[in-house]
């Protein structure tokens, strides 16, 4: 009995727990219905809690201050509703009424918020599908990233309710800020425009999601791509494969060893897990009292179109994609695209994890309009056919009703993003994001003078105090620097360069820019004449790796000795450190026999010793060795010793005759001496090159020249100048052409029969006519000026007469008027007089000029010259 009772108790406890759990999780659809058994006390408690909670209500409930939006400039469609839109609103209202009647315990639907002109607009018509002209914005991920970068997030005025206003995307883009609904509307418009099956969702999200708080997320840039563990497939042992030698070690000992290893590993694993848990604990935030009630909007992309294999969510605020199973999404009220509006009829007790996004299923999704292209209920093929028939019948029946009504076109103007905006991306070209232990800063290209476009700072702790490492991305650098990785803990700096550095530098790892310190330089070896891949330096050594050289050099290691003190006489020269030991290794030269092909040679310069090691023949395990020693050059009698057998110690795997000869050894040694000199020179050159590269890098670091693409018409000053010059030239050319078309001889030539050659007398007459005409015009002009002059003077005289007659009776105002008139008239008369004089002066000159021009005119010159 005791046991039984316990069991019952356990069950009850489990039930209670379950209930508690359920009440914790909010289910938007049935949350109020389920909680009817709430006691009065609990309600009061909640009320208290709610009143204690501070909801950050901004001073202005609107997301935008009113004055920033200039309504007057907006087109008519923003300010009024078309009849069709009115009808749509009625339909929506009707739907809303029915809905609230049927589901009185659910939140009212988000159907027609006000736009920036305070006009109610249906949400679907706010979506304006637009395909952006930038290829970068063709895919959903870049689209989402753009929207999240471009706009600044403003929290909802009331976190528990959808906003009262929903602005058009054009306005949002202009202001560059908006709430989550603005974000998702814009993103949805762009995604539908590029062919995705995308929907805006009105639902509930977690605190993090609603506030775009990424501090609990791992920065996507810090996540290392998982290395694929390639399993090498062992080929099956061949028929005659030799058996391995018998293993004589103790199996028992091995097992013991393995066990111990296993224990150690388990211990480590445990420690690690504990540490992880602790970390998780630390990062976990306190439970949100409004969990499940925070209204949020995001975007749903259904599978099918644009080769999307699986349905997923995009949070437009952060631009990240989530699986529908994600814990951040707590429920869906409704969703819509530019054609229709669906209300979720499914229970969200398990967040969005169990939701079925089959919008054709009327049980799960209540649609508002019976659109023609609404997604069908996905069933098996046969059923589908039947259903379609039924559907058609139904649709036919309903067509008479008001529901055979499709969505009015969007009232929003086309979404436009200028190339400048697209390039600048973030508001003012700068954006800062906080992730878990990481801070990401973004800049627009060319905003920073040193070309910095992105900086990722990784911290050791959650409070962003101890910097672990910094990664900086650069663009358009003159020195092709692409990424700088600074490790604060080790002090190591790694620079990555794009191809195109003058010295073909690829990676530069260093601690300080001082020469002769620890550094590693890697190069693009194909771009280098000497095939250098890598150069490692420590304070007194230098190691170089080569590839693909005609002399098969693969490796050179130089140990430097202390610098020799030089006389101040030639202090202008660089003072290279003397190499003490040079080791060079070579690849196999296939043209030489292996035992004649040097594999490694060591020059010990201080000891005057040269060591050679040859390559190993394919059927040997030992290789030839030779050591040359150059000691005293004078023997006991004072004669010069050229070569003695003990100056060359050699070991030969297969002794050869000719190598025993002193002559051969002597010649080899002489050759090696020469090569030693060359190697020393190489070492010196390498040092110089390092210095040169360092100098170049430093110069670049100071100067920050950014390269500008020749296609960048906006920034490229040179091309701009050139283009403007070209335009100017074009313009002038145009003007000249216009002038050329104005032919002063045309009216006279028109009198003559066209196409015939001019006779001399005709040319003469033409000239005379032209000149007389011009003379007439000059006289006319002079007469005109004269006439005006006379008219002015007459008027002035009249006025003066009138003034003298009525001088006594005039008021001071009239007198003033008269005086001002007089001065003006005098001025006019003077001007006319000047013009007349000038005309008189210029007229003969002009006349002569025309005569000259006529003489030179190609059409008349020949005929007139003979005469003249």
């Amino acid at each position, binding site marked *: 009995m005791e046991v039984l009772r316990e069991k019952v108790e356990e069950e009850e406890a489990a039930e209670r727990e379950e209930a508690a759990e359920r009440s914790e999780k909010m289910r938007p659809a049935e949350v109020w219905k389920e909680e009817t058994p709430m006691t009065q006390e609990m309600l009061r408690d909640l009320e208290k809690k709610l009143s204690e909670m501070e909801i950050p209500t901004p001073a202005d409930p609107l997301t935008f201050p009113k004055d920033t939006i200039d309504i007057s400039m907006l087109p008519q469609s923003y300010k009024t509703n078309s009849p069709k839109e009115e009808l749509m609103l009625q339909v929506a209202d009707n739907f809303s009424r029915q809905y609230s009647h049927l589901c009185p315990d659910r939140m009212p639907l988000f159907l027609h918020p006000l736009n920036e002109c305070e006009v109610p607009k249906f949400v679907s018509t706010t979506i304006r599908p637009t395909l952006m002209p930038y290829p970068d914005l063709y895919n959903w991920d870049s689209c989402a990233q753009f929207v999240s970068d471009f706009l600044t997030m403003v929290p909802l005025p009331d976190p528990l309710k959808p906003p009262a206003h929903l602005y058009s995307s054009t306005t949002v883009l202009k202001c560059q800020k908006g709430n989550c609904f603005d974000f998702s509307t814009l993103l949805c418009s762009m995604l539908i425009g590029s062919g995705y099956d995308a929907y805006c969702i009105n639902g509930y999200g977690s605190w993090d999601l609603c506030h775009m708080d990424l501090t609990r997320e791992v920065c996507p840039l810090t996540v290392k791509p998982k290395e694929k563990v390639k399993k090498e497939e062992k080929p099956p042992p061949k028929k005659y494969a*030799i058996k391995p030698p018998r293993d004589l070690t103790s199996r028992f000992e091995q097992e013991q060893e393995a066990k111990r290893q296993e224990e150690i590993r388990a211990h480590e694993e445990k420690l690690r897990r504990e540490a992880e848990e602790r970390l998780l604990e630390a990062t976990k935030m306190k439970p949100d009292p409004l969990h499940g009630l925070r209204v949020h909007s995001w975007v749903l992309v259904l599978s099918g179109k644009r080769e999307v294999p699986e349905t997923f969510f995009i949070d437009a605020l952060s631009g990240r994609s989530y699986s529908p199973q994600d814990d951040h999404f707590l429920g869906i009220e409704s969703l819509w695209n530019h054609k229709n509006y669906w209300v979720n009829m499914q229970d969200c007790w398990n967040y969005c994890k169990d939701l079925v996004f089959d919008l054709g299923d009327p049980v799960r999704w209540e649609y508002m309009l019976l659109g023609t292209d609404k997604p069908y209920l996905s069933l098996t093929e046969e059923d589908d056919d039947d259903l379609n028939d039924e559907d058609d019948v139904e649709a036919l029946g309903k067509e008479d009703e008001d529901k055979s009504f499709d969505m009015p076109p969007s009232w929003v103007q086309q979404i436009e993003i200028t190339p400048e905006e697209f390039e600048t991306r973030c508001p003012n070209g700068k954006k800062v994001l906080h992730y878990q232990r990481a801070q990401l800063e973004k800049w627009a290209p060319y905003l920073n003078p040193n070309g910095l476009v992105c900086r990722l700072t990784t911290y050791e702790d959650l409070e962003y105090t101890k910097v672990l490492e910094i990664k900086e991305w650069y663009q358009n650098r003159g020195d092709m620097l692409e990424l700088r990785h600074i490790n604060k803990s080790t002090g190591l700096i790694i620079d990555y360069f794009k191809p195109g550095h003058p010295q073909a530098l690829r990676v530069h790892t260093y601690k300080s820019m001082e020469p002769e310190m620890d550094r590693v330089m890697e190069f693009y070896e194909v771009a280098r004449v000497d095939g250098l891949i890598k150069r490692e330096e420590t304070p007194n050594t230098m190691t170089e790796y080569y590839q693909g050289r005609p002399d098969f050099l693969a490796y050179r290691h130089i140990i430097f000795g202390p610098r020799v003190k030089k006389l101040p006489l030639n202090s202008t020269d660089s003072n290279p450190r003397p190499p003490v030991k040079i080791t060079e290794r070579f690849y196999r030269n296939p043209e030489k026999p292996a035992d004649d092909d040097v594999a490694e040679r060591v020059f010990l310069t201080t000891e005057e010793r040269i060591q050679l090691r040859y390559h190993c023949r394919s059927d040997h395990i030992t290789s030839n060795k030779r050591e040359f020693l150059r000691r005293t050059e004078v023997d006991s009698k004072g004669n010069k010793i050229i070569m003695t057998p003990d100056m060359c110690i050699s070991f030969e795997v297969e002794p050869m005759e000719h190598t025993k*000869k*002193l002559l051969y050894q002597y010649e080899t040694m002489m050759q090696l001496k020469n090569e030693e000199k060359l190697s020393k020179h190489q070492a010196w050159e390498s040092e110089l090159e390092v210095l040169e590269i360092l100098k170049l890098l430093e110069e670049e670091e100071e100067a920050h020249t950014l390269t500008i693409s020749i296609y960048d018409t906006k920034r490229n000053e040179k091309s701009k100048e050139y283009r403007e010059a070209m335009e100017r030239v074009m313009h002038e050319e145009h003007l000249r052409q216009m002038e050329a078309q104005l032919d002063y001889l045309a009216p006279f030539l028109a009198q003559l029969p066209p196409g015939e050659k001019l006779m001399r007398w005709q040319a003469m007459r033409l000239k005379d006519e032209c000149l007389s005409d011009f003379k007439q015009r000059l006289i006319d002009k002079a007469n005109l000026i004269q006439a005006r002059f006379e008219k002015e003077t007459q008027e002035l005289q009249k006025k003066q007469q009138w003034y003298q007659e009525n001088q006594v009776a005039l008021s001071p105002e009239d007198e003033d008027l008269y005086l001002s008139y007089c001065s003006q008239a005098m001025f006019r008369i003077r001007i006319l007089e000047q013009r007349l004089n000038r005309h008189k002066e210029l007229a003969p000159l002009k006349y002569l000029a025309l005569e000259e021009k006529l003489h030179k005119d190609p059409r008349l010159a020949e005929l007139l010259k003979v005469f003249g």
Partner: protein
Amino acid sequence: MNRMYGSMEPRVMDDDMLKVAVGEQGPREEAGQLAKQEGILFKDVLSLQLDFQNILRIDNLWQFENLRKLQLDNNIIERIEGLENLIHLVWLDLSFNNIEAIEGLDTLVNLEDLSLFNNRISKIDSLDALVKLQVLSLGNNQIGNMMNIIYLRKFKCLRTLSLSGNPIAEAEDYKMFIYAYLPDLVYLDFRRIDEHAKELAEMKHQYSIDELKHRENQMQIRQEEEQARRMKLEEHKMAFVEHLDGSYLFDSMYVEDVEGGKLSYLPGVGELVGAYKDKFVIICLNIFEYGLKQQEKRKAELDTFNECIHEAIQENQEQGRLKIAKFEEEHLMNLNTIREETDLLNIEKKIMECSEDITELFNVLMTLEMQLVEQLEEAINMFERNIIDLVGLFIENVQSLMAQGRDLENHHHEKLLEIAINTLEKTAKGELDEDLPEDVRALFVDKDTIVNAVGASHDIHLLKIDNREDELVTRVNSWCTHLVDKIHRDEVMRNCKRVKEINQYIDHMQSELDNLECGDPID
């Protein structure tokens, strides 16, 4: 051309003359002193100049094995001889001599530059071996026939030719002819050939050249065909079934069979032989195909074996090399410490340690080698078993097929005998209406003769079949034994070489250490 004889006695190319020449032309300065100290071996000489020596006969050059350049100009040489050993010769100058015919150059396959200027040569030939020839100088000779040019077409590398001063050079068409027939030539008589002139010449001689080309092509095709056929036969021989892919064996049975030929005149025998032949050929074909298949199998087996052995050896060598590299690194460090050490006792101790290290290395290397020997032996034995089994199976099957052939022959023999006896009876009765040749008729004198004749034919046939079978079996067996022997021998050789190598290395190391030991107290 006509240089004075007797102004000086003809000289003989003796040792002294050569030594003087070598000494004079050897290295200079310091190296020269060394050379004098040591003496120069003739076989190390690369270049030799022997001009204006009044040499009559080329002789005593056999020691100059590595000679690259030989100048014998301005002598009175009459025959090209004694150059057979100079196979590395690249440059040969025999100008201004009295040579009458080109000869004795058949071994000089590396020759690139040959000068026979100012001699008495009247015909270009005997140059077939000189496939790398690039420069040929034959000026001031007595070449009179234009057809000599065509001979030069076979030298694909020939770029420079001089023929001026020959009778043919006076011909009107001389240059054009050469341009046309030697299109790859770049220099003729010390002048670069003009492209335009070459085109003209080609146009002029187009027809004859086309014809020549056509003939050459045909020749080449024929040669290629011949080559292909030979290859095929070689392949079949490798499979031990050559000439079994047709009626060859059957035909050979009747070649020596006089009686068989006679008997085929008998009525009905023709058809009988025809049917017999068909069946026999089918059996032959079966053997042939089976043989090829088996050959492939054997080849695959051998390839896998070789591959595995090679891999094993490579792996073992790699291990050995690693061990040696590791040892050398440590050894070098030890030697350095010994050199720096001053305390004698310590030195002794260190040297002892080094010596031990060397012994240790020796042991390791030898163990590796022994291990490899054991592993290889196992693999070789397995391979031997398998290959012998394969061969055995092959022989067995071939024998059974051959037995089928023999059965056919027996069957045929019975039929033939029957016909023969019938015919005999008919002849006896005088019923034979067909007229037979006289010698065939002679067989039908009595029963014994005809039976003997038929029997003889049968015996010959059987003998042929047996011979073929025997040949196949012996050859395949001997191949197998040879193969296995060779594998064993190679392995033993390899082992010897490796052991020798290891010993040599260890000895060297040890002696180096000993030298250090000896040298140190003196310092």
